[in-house]
């Protein structure tokens, strides 16, 4: 996948994959909804 964990070219720091970022952001949003920070999301 395009979303591999890759070692940076300039350092040994491991980057999170695109998939992992998407999951983290989705869960953060879900927690904010659960905590009542976002009460209503219009469509």
């Amino acid at each position: 996948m395009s979303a591999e964990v890759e070692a940076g070219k300039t350092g040994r720091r491991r980057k999170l994959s695109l998939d992992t970022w998407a999951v983290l952001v989705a869960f953060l949003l879900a927690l904010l909804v659960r905590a009542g920070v976002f009460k209503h999301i219009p469509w």
Partner: protein
Amino acid sequence: MADAITVPQVQPVQPALRFLRIIPGVLLLAAVGYAGKLLEQNVGAYAKAHHWTFPNIEYVLWAIILGLVISNTVGVPEIFRTGVATYEFWLKAGIVLLGSRFLLGDILKLGGVSLLLVAMEIAGAIAFMTFLGRVFHLKPKLTSLLAVGSAVCGVSAIIATKGAIEADDEDSSFSIAAILALGALALFTFPVIGHFLHLSDRAYGLWAGLAVDNTAEATAAGALYSDAAAKLAVLVKSTRNAMIGFVVLGYAIYWASQGQAKSVGNKAAFLWQKFPKFVLGFLLISVLATYHFFNKEQVGALANLSRWAFLLTFAGVGLRTNFGDMRKQGLRPFVVGAIGEVVIAGFTLALVYGAGKIFGW
């Protein structure tokens, strides 16, 4: 868009700068997507007020058409491209959030059926694409890439396989161009065929999830039919995506045995590395929803967040599709891909009909 059909290169860029670079493109995705939503609301009302006969076009199609028009006329300026490429991120976040609308029991029930159909689809698609590649005298690794792209999950699978079997950049560009062009065609043909055959939401959703290659296009093809069809298309497509590691591992072992790729050391680590993590996120949110971690209003809010994420995705599908760039990649892989896709679409439709008879849908 050239970067849609070439393998992405990782450039060392400061995180803050990278974040700033995506803003213009994300704003463009939002503007195109929202314009699609406004067009859906207003064009139908305007036509009705003037007594015109005009089909009800969903925001999904408007967003894709607007994106296609921009990409194929004025083009997407460089400043927007990094942000437009985030459409895949929004797709995956949207799928995870969509998990809140599935109860675990439904997933296990539908997932079991779809797993069986997916296994048959993958085996059939790989066998047929390999046969076609030989008939058309395509390079063996190009054939492998086309087979994995049409059997599993489009561009992501091709990129994963390219690395594992050490295929040429040119081969992966050919394959990606063919899969993207055919995915764009599927967006316009699948809903028409589905309506012509009077497919139920369930049958159509299963078919779109099984036969359309890229996850974004499969989601859009489902959403063009109905909300229920989109849900099922996403579930089936996610099941296909979950198979990516096994298929890529199979190809990696085959090409290593031919002495044309490195052998795979730790197979479990390889499978985990290739496994799409958003599928796990989708399942986890579904577990939380099943055990009432979210109340009804919160599930509604999460579903709407998922819709907004998909809105950006659909705009991105149009904006990253440039037919001129695809044409430059040559005709033969496209012809092989097109023949393969038509046969796979027919085969998967037969699978869906068969499953409907067996399970009494």
